[in-house]
């Protein structure tokens, strides 16, 4: 950066370095949320451009990467908002009344069909899961298998902690539809995790 003596700016590295040091990370952040390589790349580009415009306001209170990720999240929210206007969730009305996909687990009386239809024992201490590399791989694998729109909604709400009112506005859905969509996403994620996790450690499955 030529002729640059300002303190606030000197804390930031040069935009070239942003690409080298944070580009892949920002790209993975975007991929987890939008799923599409081209869109994710656009998100990174928009983020770096916005960062360049806003670099005077970088106060140095957070790490450079945290600052960039913050900008990226806003860009992703904007993208999801646009996408939801162009292509609203389909069949939502029917979905709220229709039987859920997990209906096969339940009998006519609404109770679990039998012991095997319900959740299995994961046979592990949840507090130790985070130390396990395989755990993160399984979790990522299952997140990647959520349907695209469902993944957008789920990651905004559950990973980024965007509050429900905001998520409803961004996705252009009613709160009751949001609860249904979240229930579905959680239910799928839970089931996928269980299958993959227990499948990957057959010897440790509890009887």
């Amino acid at each position, binding site marked *: *950066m*030529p*002729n*640059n003596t*300002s303190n606030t*700016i000197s804390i930031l590295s040069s*935009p*070239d370095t*942003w*690409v*080298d040091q944070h*580009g*892949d*990370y920002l*790209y*993975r*952040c975007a991929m*987890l949320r939008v799923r599409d*390589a081209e869109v994710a*790349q656009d998100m*990174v*580009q928009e983020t*770096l*451009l916005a960062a*360049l415009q806003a670099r005077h306001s970088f106060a140095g209170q957070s790490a450079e990467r945290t600052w960039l990720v913050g900008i990226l999240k806003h860009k992703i929210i904007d993208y999801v908002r646009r996408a939801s206007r162009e292509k609203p969730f389909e069949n939502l009305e029917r979905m709220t009344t229709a039987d859920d996909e*997990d*209906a096969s687990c*339940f009998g006519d*009386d*609404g*109770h*679990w069909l039998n*012991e095997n239809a*319900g*959740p299995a*024992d*994961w046979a592990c201490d*949840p507090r130790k*899961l*985070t130390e396990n590399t395989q*755990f*993160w*791989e399984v*979790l*990522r694998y299952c997140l990647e298998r959520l349907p695209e729109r469902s993944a957008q909604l789920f990651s905004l*709400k*559950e*990973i980024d*902690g965007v509050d*429900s009112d905001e998520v409803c506005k961004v996705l252009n859905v009613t*709160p009751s539809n949001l*609860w249904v969509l*979240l*229930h579905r996403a*959680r*239910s799928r*994620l*839970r089931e996928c*995790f*269980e299958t993959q996790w227990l499948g990957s450690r057959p010897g440790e499955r509890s009887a």
Partner: protein
Amino acid sequence: MKMPRWLDDVLAWLTPPCREVVRWASQDLDGVLTWHQRVRMRMHFVICDLCKRYQQQLAVLRALLRSDPERLLGDDAQKLSPEAKQHLKEMLREQQPPHD
């Protein structure tokens, strides 16, 4: 502790079916259950280990998803291509004013 059979029946009658309880378990994470729904859900857990386990697993997944963003992304996964990086750098140079 084994509960008397009649108490099981009363609780089953007072609480919603499992299909409903799993929905409530999800909604509880979003803080939208009423207090009486929550009480009925808790009563249901007394007689239904499967629903209780379901609810605990949802809570574990939620906590873990937020616990470590860096590890959630992994480090060996997708990368920008060298061409994409070059393109980004050139674009940033073009946009950067020569004098700040």
